[in-house]
């Protein structure tokens, strides 16, 4: 059964989580788009500019929200489900389903916003964004699992070392996507890497490691 009580709980905590982000988003959008009008005059209001700014902030919101929630899924919500004696297999299934739902909705929101921009090969962009979100979610699940296994200080230390590599990779991959280079290789990388993290995460959780942190 895909949607069961664990998924309903995940949906509830996600909605609470999303509302917090939404408030932050509204506050940022208000201060960056409406507040300046108090100083320069409301006659300067440009609906098109407002639309672009609002969608840009929304894109940032969606991405940061997905990232934070993926990390929380495997740390806070894992513990929460454990307290209620949910089996590890079911927890992992709930996290996996959540990842798929977040990827689809996140990609849909981001691609809808990109409709405001003129992008060549929109279909390819859709596939790449979808795969990259799924990869990021699984990667963050993995990092959170490491944090729970070995302690957060260990993970932060490792992550700092990895950060430069990640930024370097993201920078180049982003550049390649923009330039339309190495399409097949990039898509293959996204699929293989996401599948690898998916399998590792499921393997970690199916074993009797104790999550002390």
């Amino acid at each position, binding site marked *: 059964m895909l949607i069961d009580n664990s998924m309903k*709980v995940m949906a*509830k905590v996600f909605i609470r989580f999303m509302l917090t982000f939404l408030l932050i988003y509204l506050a940022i959008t208000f201060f960056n788009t409406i507040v300046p009008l108090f100083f320069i005059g409301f006659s300067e209001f440009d609906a098109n500019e407002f639309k672009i700014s609002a969608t840009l902030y929304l894109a940032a919101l969606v991405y940061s929200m997905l990232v934070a929630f993926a990390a929380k899924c495997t740390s806070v919500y894992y513990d929460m489900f454990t307290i209620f*004696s*949910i089996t590890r297999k079911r927890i992992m299934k709930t996290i996996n389903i959540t990842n798929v739902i977040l990827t689809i909705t996140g990609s849909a929101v981001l691609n809808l916003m990109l409709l405001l921009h003129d992008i060549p090969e929109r279909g390819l962009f859709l596939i790449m964004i979808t795969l990259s979100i799924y990869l990021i979610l699984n990667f963050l699940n993995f990092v959170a699992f490491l944090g729970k296994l070995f302690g957060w200080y260990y993970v932060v230390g490792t992550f700092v070392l990895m950060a430069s590599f990640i930024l370097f990779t993201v920078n180049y991959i982003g550049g390649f996507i923009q330039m339309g280079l190495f399409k097949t290789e990039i898509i293959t990388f996204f699929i293989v890497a996401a599948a690898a993290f998916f399998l590792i995460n499921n393997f970690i959780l199916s074993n009797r490691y104790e999550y002390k942190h």
Partner: protein
Amino acid sequence: MNPIKLKLSNITYYYDNFRALNNMSFVLEEHQIMGLIGRNGSGKTTLLKVIAHQLLQDKGEVIIDDENFSMKENNQYKICLARETLGKTFEQTEVMKVKMIFDLAATLYKNWDMNYANHLIKRFKLNVNKKYNKISKGMKTTVGIILGLASRAEITLFDEPYVGLDPVSREIFYAELQKDYTENPRTMIISSHLINELEGMFERVLIIDEGSIIVDSHIDKLKDRYYLLQGRKEPIESYNTHFRTMNVETIGSLASYSVEGPLNEEIIRRMKADDIDISMISLQKLLYHLTNGGENNADR
């Protein structure tokens, strides 16, 4: 005999190199209350956590309704472990109000009774609008008790369900536990140090020490095995080939013997004729003697 609800076979659990549970096996029937008794550090909480799937055992199996619990994906919502804390997730989350916890539990447990939960909230005078990490220790225990009772989980586990509770709240808990168990029978394990307050509720008793089971018995069978003999020392001593002395307390010529039998009806009749008073040894005393709390007393 009711069908077997819970079966533990050869459960072993290590905290690093320390063996907390040592090859533990027992079965628990459906609709039975078992008392889990042991000294501090004997492995009670670890055992409950293993049953509740909060810890994964190194060896052995936890079988519920003839199925290996840890291998099942959907075999869930059957267990509720009520403790004095819900763990660091709830302790450290600043925004988690008590009512949110009950809301999540209501979503997860298919038999959750919200009306009963509200009734308990009123009885315990629990403020559900407070954040979980801001309420007192006693109130956290109350949250655990309400989760345990209102979840109506098929297997309900209470781990020392009195920590931080005042005497009035303890009495409310005992009364609600008995009432709810009568109306909604289910399988329960209650670990406790306050043995005298709870022993009347137990149908089975599991006494553990240093991660091993030392007594696993129906409460009625304990009465036929362990006795408290009181009277003059000489007549009691004359029967000492019929029992094993665990402890002796003497006041003048009178003595109180804690012994392990069984004693047959003929011996009991003869003892009574010799003015020896025979009664059941309390669980608290039994724990004391079996865990070597009174190891030197038998020599006096």
